[in-house]
């Protein structure tokens, strides 16, 4: 099965059923299917070939869903990118995968213009919510393009299930993101496994505030359409009261969270047990929920199943804890998701005894095919498995098991910081800091924060005679980085600890900061 068949199947089965709700707009499966067909025609009319990459850099909306499925229906590969991504990084991603199409929106035209100017591969730019500006070559507004009479196109085969479906870029320690390659088969495997353990049925109504450019948010869309559920689409979690009202009004049954959102919800005075009788389940992943928050959530949502989960972009999801086990194992992330395996290995690659810390390894049909055109990085994480034709994924995360086989996240092997549930590579932020004239040295670290998990902090040494202040540093970063990567605080020092070869010892700055917060 290919992913776009999720939609054709559900449209055949439930044509009048509401698939997506966005504000006042209610879009049925039939409507969605028609819009997707038109989007695919727009792409094909503009020369789309099987396997062409389409970068989608838009806020959560019906149009984003249309672009994803339209790309697949036209035989393409979609690459969802966070809409707060600035021009340089957007251009990097486009260039890295030589994307020919960029899908954007009116509000982001400045970014799009700058990125396209740096991206010779882009032939077509589709504006989902307005008209194309005259100064953006190859640009077309979606509505006008969809309104054109489609040219007679030869019949077309979009491909088969082992074809590449999606490229999702993930931050890495090197400071440059890597494109995780997922085939249709990978996605079907992951979506089936997850919706099985979540006990999803077509009657589920999910409310998602998570970005569709993040696989956690993306799969809310994919699983909804696969099962014929309904998805309430929110652009972000900005006004908690609005979200809570919607939970009640729309009789939402499923609410995916990250710890930052849970922390904000739990601060609200108005939350009382029993306010959401229809809420069948809440999920958490991307970072650990503090046990105190898990307990508070259980008190406030007594009839709601709480799923603690863990995963990484390279395989979508690895583990989940059955809600009935939460009370007995509150800090565990559970066991391998259905039809997959997860185990902990030592330095020699041998399985660890319960209690010993080692690296988590994942095996299953959801494991990525590799990083796009980056064999070296791929070879570092995908290793031979049980059979000659397969690869297993070394997660780079440290875990231990208990006597019953429940898994516990211990820490990361690398220096990636998780803030608001998103990955932040210190090197990526440091690279941006060095672009600011006046900064001589920089070390980016994480500092514990009750809402963010970890807050990003820039520790900098100014060049002689430089007089920049924290506000300027933060503004500079905001101009080049996604929102969640921008330092919350800046500390100025006269020097940073170094190795004998003059390399900045970021880990020392980091551990010192952690020690200080523990005092």
């Amino acid at each position, binding site marked *: 099965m290919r992913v776009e068949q999720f939609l054709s199947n559900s449209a055949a089965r439930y044509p009048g059923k509401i698939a997506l709700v966005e504000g006042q707009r209610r879009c049925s499966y039939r409507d969605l299917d028609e819009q997707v067909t038109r989007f695919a025609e727009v792409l094909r009319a503009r020369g789309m070939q099987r396997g062409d990459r389409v970068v989608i850099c838009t806020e959560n909306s019906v149009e984003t869903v249309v672009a994803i499925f339209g790309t697949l229906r036209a035989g393409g590969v979609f690459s969802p990118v966070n809409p707060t991504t600035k021009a340089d990084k957007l251009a990097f991603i486009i260039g890295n995968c030589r994307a020919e199409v960029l899908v954007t929106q009116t509000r982001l035209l400045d970014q799009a213009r700058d990125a396209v100017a740096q991206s010779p591969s882009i032939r077509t730019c589709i504006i989902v919510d307005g008209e194309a500006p005259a100064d953006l070559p190859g640009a077309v507004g979606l509505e006008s393009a969809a309104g054109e009479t489609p040219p007679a196109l030869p019949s077309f085969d979009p491909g088969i299930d082992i074809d590449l479906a999606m490229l999702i870029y993930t931050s890495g320690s090197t400071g440059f993101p890597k494109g995780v390659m997922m085939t249709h088969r990978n996605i079907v495997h992951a979506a089936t496994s997850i919706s099985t353990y979540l006990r999803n049925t077509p009657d589920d109504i999910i409310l998602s505030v998570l970005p569709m450019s993040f696989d956690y948010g993306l799969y809310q869309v994919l699983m909804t359409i696969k099962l014929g559920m309904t998805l309430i689409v929110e652009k972000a979690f900005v006004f908690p*009261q609005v979200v809570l009202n919607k939970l009640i009004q729309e009789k939402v049954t499923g609410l995916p969270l990250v710890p*930052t959102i849970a922390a904000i919800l739990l601060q609200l005075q108005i939350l009382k047990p029993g306010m959401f009788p229809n809420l069948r389940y809440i999920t958490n992943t991307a970072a650990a929920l503090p046990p105190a928050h898990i307990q508070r959530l259980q008190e406030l949502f007594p009839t709601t199943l709480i799923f603690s989960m863990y995963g990484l972009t390279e395989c979508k999801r690895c583990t989940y804890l059955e809600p009935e086990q939460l009370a007995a194992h509150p800090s565990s992330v559970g066991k391998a998701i259905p039809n997959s395996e997860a185990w902990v290995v030592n330095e020699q690659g041998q399985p660890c005894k319960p209690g010993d810390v080692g690296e988590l390894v994942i095996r299953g049909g959801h494991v990525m095919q590799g990083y796009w055109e980056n064999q070296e990085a791929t070879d570092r994480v995908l290793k031979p498995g049980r059979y000659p034709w397969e690869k297993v994924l070394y997660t780079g995360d440290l875990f231990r098991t208990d006597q019953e086989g429940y898994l516990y996240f211990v820490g990361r092997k690398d220096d990636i910081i998780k803030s608001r549930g998103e990955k932040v590579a210190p090197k990526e932020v440091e690279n941006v800091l060095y672009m600011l004239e006046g900064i001589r040295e920089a070390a980016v670290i994480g500092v514990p924060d009750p809402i963010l998990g970890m807050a990003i902090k820039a520790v900098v040494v100014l060049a002689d005679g430089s007089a920049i202040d924290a506000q300027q540093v933060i503004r500079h970063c905001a101009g080049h980085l996604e929102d969640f990567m921008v330092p919350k605080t800046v500390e100025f020092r006269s020097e940073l600890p170094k190795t004998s070869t003059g390399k900045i010892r970021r880990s020392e700055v980091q551990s010192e900061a952690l020690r200080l917060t523990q005092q």
Partner: protein
Amino acid sequence: MAESIEPAIRQFIAQNFMYREGIQSLRDNQSLLEQGLIDSTGVLELVFYLEKTFAITVGDDEVIPENLDSVQQISSYLRRKLTPASQVCVA
């Protein structure tokens, strides 16, 4: 005091949420949400700033777009919270 509300709000928003455009390009009635200028942690910072600067308490049910989504709405909300009727007369 009343005259200085809008400038203070615009200054706060420009300093904390706007990296690209200048203060001048944000219209008083422009939605911060639609402009992508504010997110969940931004709202928390805004509420903290309002409580600290204007000595008010913002209730959970008052953290809604109608009160906080534009310079105009924030200013109107503040004026409602600060009207003499809500202040205790000090003898």
